[in-house]
């Protein structure tokens, strides 16, 4: 090491020449890229691209928590693969996409092929972005090149075990599973329907989470003609994306048009559903900022795709009964007071509910009349077929900022032992996820 440092010192003039030449190369590159692309540096086109980037929710993955916009570095745990870090997609010439041509940009978004010809991991929803029209692609490119502040920070290297880090299998995967066609409007449907289909299948990439995955983790369908499209996805990062087909029992067939619209715009419909986890992020960064006409189009399309029945016997938002245990518990000492020395004596689920949840959600679990504190009765998260999202909410809470208003529920991981956690979830499910009429 010391030898190396010595040789560097001796070759300082050489180093200087090297630095100067690299800088010169960079200046040349920048100039080249700028010259080629000035025809795209148009305020209107950039604004259009900015809106499309919101619709595509590029921010969700390409901005790290607390990090700079589109500077990447957000860690993503991919099952059976390892940890990926999203890339810097600011127009920085070295670490971002400042040196990319429109053709290279297009190829990355549509086919998942990076500048150096390497295949991108399909954490990038290029299967969905393949549907983007050429015109929209140009606008996106113009925005990322001329409308975004360059950030010079490089992102950490991906952490993938050696045998899995080869990229060539991705080519095979793409050949097998990816259907890279620009969205073709269906002449038998209205313009609004087609706009909705274009957004849902493409930029909004709903299927990325909401469509079931096959054996190679590929989405089973990329549009309404495929089996199982949007009928509920796998558990990712602990959260499960539900069936959002119009099936009246397993999907959202019983939601009114107004309810679905309000949900997509705010993430909150009392006595129906509240968005948490990745859906809260999608609403915060993307859906809540989209035009009313685009939300309306997506709603039209979503309400018209083929319903897919699942195993549920009652809709997830029509389950549960108000709780009544407070009458029994109030005045009776808690278990730790009755058995102070016995660590195995933990309070039951009803007691844990009263101590942790009832101050906001009410002793009976129906929340507040205005829905600021949501009802747990008739609540999609509590009543869903699986309890994954309920568990995430209990442990880590819910956060959602829409129109500058932040809604949050704190997580309770710090306050619960493993045993208490199970008792609480069990109680919540028994009470607020009970089938109707029980």
């Amino acid at each position, binding site marked *: 090491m010391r030898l190396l440092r010595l040789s560097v010192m001796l070759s300082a003039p050489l180093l200087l020449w090297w630095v100067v030449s690299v800088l010169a190369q960079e200046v040349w590159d920048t100039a080249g890229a700028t010259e080629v692309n000035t025809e795209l540096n148009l305020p209107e086109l950039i604004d259009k691209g900015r809106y499309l980037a919101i619709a595509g929710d590029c921010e969700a993955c390409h901005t790290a928590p607390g990090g700079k916009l589109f500077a990447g570095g957000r860690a993503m745990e991919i099952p059976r693969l390892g940890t990926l870090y999203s890339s810097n997609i600011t127009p920085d010439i070295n670490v971002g996409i400042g040196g990319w041509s429109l053709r290279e940009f297009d190829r990355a978004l549509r086919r998942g092929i990076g500048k150096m010809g390497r295949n991108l991991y399909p954490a990038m929803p290029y299967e969905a972005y393949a549907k983007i029209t050429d015109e929209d692609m140009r606008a996106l490119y113009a925005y990322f090149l001329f409308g975004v502040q360059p950030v010079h920070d490089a992102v950490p290297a991906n952490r993938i075990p050696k045998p899995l880090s080869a990229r060539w299998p991705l080519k095979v995967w793409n050949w097998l599973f990816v259907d890279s066609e620009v969205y073709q409007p269906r002449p038998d449907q209205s313009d609004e329907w087609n706009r909705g289909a274009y957004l849902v299948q493409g930029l909004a990439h709903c299927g990325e989470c909401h469509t079931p995955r096959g054996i190679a983790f590929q989405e089973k369908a990329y549009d309404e003609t495929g089996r199982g499209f949007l009928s509920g996805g796998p558990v990712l990062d602990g959260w499960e994306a539900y069936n959002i087909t119009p099936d009246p029992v397993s999907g959202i067939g019983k939601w009114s048009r107004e309810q679905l619209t309000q949900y997509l715009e705010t993430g909150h419909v009392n006595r129906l559903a509240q968005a948490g986890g990745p859906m809260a992020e999608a609403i915060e960064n993307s859906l809540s900022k989209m035009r009313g006409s685009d939300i309306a189009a997506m709603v039209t399309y979503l309400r018209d795709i083929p319903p897919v029945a699942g195993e549920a016997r009652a809709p997830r938002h029509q389950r549960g009964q108000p709780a009544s245990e407070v009458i029994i*518990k109030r005045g009776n000492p*808690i278990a730790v*007071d009755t058995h102070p020395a016995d660590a195995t004596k933990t309070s039951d689920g009803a007691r844990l509910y*009263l*101590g942790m949840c009832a101050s*906001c959600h009410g002793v009976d679990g129906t929340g507040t009349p205005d829905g600021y504190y949501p009802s747990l009765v008739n609540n999609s998260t509590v009543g869903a077929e699986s309890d994954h999202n309920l568990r995430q909410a209990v442990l880590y*809470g819910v*956060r959602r900022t829409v129109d500058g208003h932040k809604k949050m529920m*704190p997580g309770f991981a710090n*306050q619960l032992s493993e045993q208490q956690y199970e008792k609480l979830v069990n109680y919540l499910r028994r009470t607020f996820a009970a089938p109707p009429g029980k």
Partner: protein
Amino acid sequence: MAGMEAEFIIVGSGVAGALVANELASAGKSVLMLEAGPRVPRWQTVERFRNQVDKTDFMAPYRSAPWAPHPEYGKFANDYLVFKGSHKFNSQYIRAVGGTTWHWAASCWRFLPNDFKIRSLYGVGRDWPIEYADLAPWYQHAEQELGVWGPDDEELGSPRDRAYPMSPLPLSYNDAQVKQRMNAHNPDWRVVTEPVARNSRPYDDRPTCCGNNNCMPICPIGAMYNGIVHVDKAEANGARLIENAVVNRIVSEGDRIVAVEYRDSLGEAHRIEGKTFILAANGIETPKLMLMSPGRHHPAGVGNRSDMVGRNLMDHPGTGVGFYADKPLWPGRGPQEMTSLIGFRDGPFRAEYAGKKLHLSNMSVVERATREVLGQNLEHDILTLNERIRDRAARYVEFNSFHELLPQPQNRIRPSATEKDASGIPRPEITYSIDDYVKKSAVHTRENYAEIARVMGGSEVTFSDEFAPNNHITGTTIMGESAEDSVVDKDCRTFDHPNLFIAGSSVMPTVGTANVTLTIAALALRLADRLIKEA
């Protein structure tokens, strides 16, 4: 557990200890906190409180552990504090992970610039070895850490560079009505919105206050700041915490502290070694521990060359008034306290009698009114009784006050020579008297109480003239310029031991005229900054 060690050992996990721990841990230091009491999750305290019949007993939900008693009164009285002197120092504090801010009203006042120099200005008390300007940036930092809301459109007398982290929730109807009528009558009273560590919006991943109106004894949802917030943060940043660790001796070699010894809940003895020690066990347990630790070079206890350890005990002796206003005000909606009268915090009168702050209670008085009406044993039908309870619960007004008690060496805490707790550790013995400086001020306060009652059209005016404790336990390891009459220097370092520091209310040279927690927090953050820069 023998052989455990850390670079920084912090005794106590309340707001002071936890803030220091979190700052040090965030800077990558190795930190160990020792807490005498147990870790009690919020939900348990909430459920104890909800089960309790007498809702006015704020300590009933916090039962002390047998190995770490804290003062309990009323139904669970444990006579932990031994009282001497003319007045009982019947204070409260909590020995549990997170400390006494589990139950407080969250008032976060900065001291006034003049509070730091009452000796030079008014010829009473002591000057601080630092000025307001030295602490101002740390007040700001503390307000951010604790999450304070405060009024940006009212002059509170403590200059600030930046806006409060949050704007206040709207005043309760009670607070708004009383404030408006009082300020219209006498603008010099200056009834203002009180700065408090309570969320008016989601802040620091804690929710917005939803007005349960039981800040004391426990905020059920964590909208109000509690020391546990920084215990959790410190642990997330790598600090370790041992609960149920009752430190009973500080071990020294020469002038350096080398270890502390503690007993666990089973009475087993342990020893922890470290490089730097921070005592943050409040104004009673910190001096008690120091006085319990005599060494060859310091026979009168650790840090006690000045004989000032345990002396200069201060608090804010309070008096009160209650009456029925001429109109319904509906106290009990929103937080328990939202406004204060600050017109008597400072002025030349402080040469003669104590500066003070008065505050309006916004606690629900339904229980009080119900007991009272039922106690009158009137023959009424249910509807009339109900109407009467509603009327009285809606019109009751209560004010309380904090009078600045001056530091006096004869007011002191020491380990009792005869009385021991369940683990055989001496109980705190407190000698305490309230002098004419406060009594004279209380007479003036009473006159103002009477005037407030008149302004509010009050009837059935009842004065509480007996001084009540306000649990602002200060002065017992006093800060000063000189090793001759002080325990710590302006950096909170003990004069006698270069690696022993004190965080918390006990270092305060004066108690000022407002709640002390924000000053505790500011001093703790300033101390942590010194420690990081020195290490």
